[in-house]
């Protein structure tokens, strides 16, 4: 019989991904909160702090509580009025009353009493309250999640991605250690907790076992996404906080949350290797995982545009054509190699590296053939009429010039 899971915060960065993965594994999911747009997942309306309808828990085995009320953090800080505090308590109690045996609370690696930011303090306080429940043993699990990356650019991964686009970045907390973990790995870990929790643990750390400094992490992101280096300028924390305050006072300026700055400044690693192993996770190297995700797609699109430009001899403005070519290249196993950067800048250079005898097995030849097939679907080009021979002569001359280079290139790459 499929397991039925109740999930809060299902529309968030982790939640959306998790619902998708849980369903793929054959679990039924009930979303507690607002309905997911464009999805057929059952949703039971609920807001953090309310007592959820018991129907949501019918036939369910476990609850995953991902939702977090940021506004409440801002308004009440660590005061008892914070909706996160009471809301989690109510949710856990109701689930227990409905006969559910597992309650997984999404916490953070910054959860500690001495955390600089309210988020870390609140999460810690909630953990403490959950642990104090008389029935918590073997039923309540707190998952302390590290710095999540990968997948769609949302939440703090969106912020990191934006920062990684900058060549020079003044930043605080560059020497603080963070524990990056891919969003899919987080989902795997949470699902493992929900379905087969390891015995004897109340708190589980789902974070990269090898901490890296925040500065290194930003550089890794930038290299993977843009293939460039990054100059980081350390900023003292006092100055940064002053900047935050200032940004809030000046209208029309994007504000920077004090919370985030404090969170970063207070980051400290937690040992996670044991927990990761207990959950049966095998974590990927973040640098490699990043290359395989979204940025790689962006580069593929750029390459597709270059290929089309080379084949047609003009800039192709149809984004549809570029996307279609990228899709075809991506699923074609024989053409995994990326174009070197000079060809990305000057597509005409491809003439000098094209294979002399294009066989269907040659990666570049295949890509160019696919590009030509896509180019045919674009509106027809103007006809040259009387200048046909001039065009042909120019092409043949260029071909003759390029031929020796192609021989040399073949000799080097063979």
């Amino acid at each position, binding site marked *: 019989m499929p397991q039925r899971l109740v999930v809060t915060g299902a529309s968030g960065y982790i939640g959306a991904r998790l619902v998708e993965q849980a369903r793929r594994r054959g679990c039924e999911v009930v979303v507690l909160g607002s309905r997911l747009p464009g999805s057929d997942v059952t949703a039971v309306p609920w807001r953090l702090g309310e007592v959820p309808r018991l129907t949501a828990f019918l036939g369910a085995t476990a609850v995953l509580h991902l939702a977090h009320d940021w506004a409440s953090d801002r308004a009440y800080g660590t005061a008892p009025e914070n909706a996160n505090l009471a809301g989690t308590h109510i949710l856990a109690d109701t689930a227990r009353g409905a006969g559910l045996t597992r309650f997984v609370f999404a916490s953070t690696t910054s959860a500690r009493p001495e955390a600089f930011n309210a988020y870390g303090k609140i999460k810690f306080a909630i953990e403490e309250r959950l642990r104090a429940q008389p029935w918590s043993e073997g039923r309540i699990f707190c998952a302390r999640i590290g710095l999540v990356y990968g997948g769609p650019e949302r939440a703090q991964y969106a912020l990191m991605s934006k920062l990684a686009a900058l060549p020079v970045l003044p930043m605080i907390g560059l020497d603080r250690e963070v524990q990056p973990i891919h969003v899919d790995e987080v989902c795997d870990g949470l699902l493992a907790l929900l379905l087969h929790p390891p015995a004897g643990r109340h708190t589980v750390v789902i974070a990269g076992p090898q901490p890296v400094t925040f500065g290194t992490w930003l550089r890794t992101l930038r290299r993977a996404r843009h293939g460039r280096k990054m100059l980081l300028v350390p900023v003292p924390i006092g100055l940064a906080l002053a900047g935050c305050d200032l940004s809030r006072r000046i209208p029309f300026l994007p504000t920077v949350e004090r919370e985030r700055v404090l969170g970063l400044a207070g980051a400290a690693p937690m040992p996670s290797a044991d927990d990761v192993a207990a959950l049966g996770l095998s974590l990927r190297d973040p640098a490699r995982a990043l290359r395989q995700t979204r940025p790689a797609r962006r580069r593929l699109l750029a390459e597709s545009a270059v290929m089309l430009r*080379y*084949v*047609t*001899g003009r800039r192709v403005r149809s984004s*549809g*054509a570029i996307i*279609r*070519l990228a*899709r*075809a290249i991506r699923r*074609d196993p*024989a053409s995994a190699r990326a174009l070197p950067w000079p060809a990305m800048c000057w597509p*005409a250079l*491809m*003439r000098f590296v*094209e294979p002399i*005898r*294009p066989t*269907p097995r040659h990666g570049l*030849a*295949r890509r*160019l*053939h*696919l*590009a*030509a*097939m*896509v*180019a*045919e*679907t*674009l509106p027809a*080009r103007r*006809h*040259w*009429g*009387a200048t*046909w*021979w001039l*065009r*042909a002569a120019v*092409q*043949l001359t*260029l*071909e003759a010039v*390029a031929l020796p280079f*192609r021989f040399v290139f073949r000799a080097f790459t063979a």
Partner: protein
Amino acid sequence: MSDPAADIVVIGSGPAGVSVALPLVEAGRRVVMIDGGRDGDAPAGTPWRRMLGAHLEALAPDDGLSPKWRTPEARRLLGAFHAHEPIDTEDFNAVGALGRGGLSRIWGAFVCELQADDLQGWPLTAYDLRASYDAVVSRIGVSGSHDDDMAAFYGSADVLQAPPPLGPTAAAMFKRYTIARPDPEFALGRARNALITENRWQRQSCDLRLACLWGCERGAIYDARQDLALLRQHANFELRDSAAQRLAPAEGGWDVITTRGEHLHAPRLVVAAGALGSLRLVAPLLSPATELRVLNSPVMAVPLLVAGRLGGELPTAGHSLAQLGFRLACSPTAGDYVSGAIYEVAGLPPSSFAARMPLGRRAATEIFQALAPALAIATIYFPGRYSANTVTLRPPAQGDQSPRIEVRGGVAAGFDEVARTVRQRLTVIWRRLGARPLPGTTLATAGTDAHLGGVFPMGVVAPHGTNNYGELHAAPRLHLVDGSVLPSIPSKFTTLTVMANADRIGRYLAEVA
């Protein structure tokens, strides 16, 4: 479970299947036809959907042999066929289709009749096929000329529709031909295509949009699904969506076991699954020691440059089926000739040609576009006796019921010599017609022509032979009606003959069934 609802079960809804079924249904016989139910038309709409497929299924590298095989429709049909038929090949291109209408959904639509000379060694005479040729031609709608040098070669022309206008490159060649007559043994004339130029029931005439390759939305090109629509108006006809898996002799007839696990029973069984599909179905009924063969018509494609057309405009209206047809006698012996067709490149995708030019992709594309108004492609078909393909039946693998079939392609000894002579003679003739052969002539892999035959030849007295009505000697009451029963493959397009022969067998079965 037996199925008393049918007098005859027909396997396959391609040109042969519908041709055999029509006379049966019209005579009141109850017919059940089965075929793997892929029916969707090529999606209309944006150019990329037509050319690449809604799911980009046709955006994948192809072998570049003929643009015809790279369309979404062709890939769907062939893909389904290969997924269904366990045929191993070597140097052979196994062309077959699984889906309603069969290969007629992607055919070149060239039609011609066989003459007495072509029927040597057949247990039939031209007279036997006459009525059926006329019936099929008037049913499918054929356009062509009845007063040029090829008219008699292509057959009786009573019911022809007027041909569509010639493309400019083909017109230039044809004009030179009518003035010069370059060789007494060479003849050139208008192609004869199953392309209608006058509206008919449920079909619209060709509007010269140059979109033939990607599927004609107007139904101007004949496609067996049009006859299927006709058949489905009869109450005594039933079409079922399932592919035949296995045939088994049963009490008083045959059982067809389908991929859906149905058992269809009928006193008579007609197999029209295409030469390779029928081979796969019928071979398990024969002893493994039976020596089978497959004939095909070796085909060459020659790119021609009509110098007088250089710098001209690429036509924006026309069709991309064959423009002209030709014939060249090889020796004074009757029936010893090669024939072929001439195509223009307008409406064909440039990438298929650029891929085969010995140039970089950019240069190839540009030069192709510069030359395109002056380009023509001639295909030369050689008689099937020059093919030497072998069929091997391997014992079934564990857990399998039917033997594995392996087809190995090849050409007969002496073919290269014949081909060289023909090419040399044609080169002289092309020059006199104002065209120059360009480098890049290729002999297609055996089987690519899809003119297959000779598997269960009519009139051959052997277990794998069939009688005049396609009835297999080793399996009475099982009739084969597709290309597999042709005793020989002439250097002509065979589809019309397959249809006419199926029609003839259908008329016979209507009387005896």
